[in-house]
């Protein structure tokens, strides 16, 4: 079955330290992978996507993600976290199979808490 998983419910990090939010996937064929962020009382915002090409993808607000095909992972990273990065982060995969073409599935979400 095709799926996307975020193994951590919450990630705590001190401001200025590196931030990593984990995501693994299981899909048929080549995956289209995305990261979204949801700030309190606001809608989901697109951060970055991987379709093809370089395994390291750079996105908004200084975030980047590394696609690792052998480990089926797409972890989100930021070298130096800010308090304002505290939010709920979702990994998503777009299905490309015939019976689910265009369907997006989201992970359960990871709450990031950055302390001053």
């Amino acid at each position: 079955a095709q799926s996307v998983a975020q193994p951590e419910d919450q990630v705590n990090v001190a401001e200025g330290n590196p931030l990593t939010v984990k995501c693994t996937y299981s899909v048929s064929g080549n995956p289209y992978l995305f990261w979204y962020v949801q700030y309190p009382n606001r809608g989901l915002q697109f951060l970055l996507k991987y379709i093809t090409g370089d395994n390291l993808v750079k996105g908004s607000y200084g975030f980047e993600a590394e696609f690792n095909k052998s480990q089926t992972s797409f972890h989100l990273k930021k070298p130096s976290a800010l308090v304002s990065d505290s939010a709920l982060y979702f990994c998503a995969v777009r299905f490309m199979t015939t019976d689910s073409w265009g369907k997006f599935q989201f992970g359960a979400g990871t709450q990031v808490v950055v302390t001053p």
Partner: protein
Amino acid sequence: EADIYQTPRYLVIGTGKKITLECSQTMGHDKMYWYQQDPGMELHLIHYSYGVNSTEKGDLSSESTVSRIRTEHFPLTLESARPSHTSQYLCAVAGGSNEKLFFGSGTQLSVL
């Protein structure tokens, strides 16, 4: 960028009422989606559409219906609202071959 409009922004209704949540977009994208999300929780796909007269069921579709008569409009209808329907409903739009999802501001529904 896709401009997505969801109305109402907030809705409080009684059990058993029929309601329709509106979603419209102005960019002419083909794919539209409805997600349900409880506060701080994961998104559940309710319905999606690839274009006019095309609708598919998601994971939580059994108690709601959608229609796609026009490209820009994708309303979600609950025939008989129940307290278990209390949640946030998010409409999303995607377009192009490598599209990303753009989300509306959501409708916060409370069923008493």
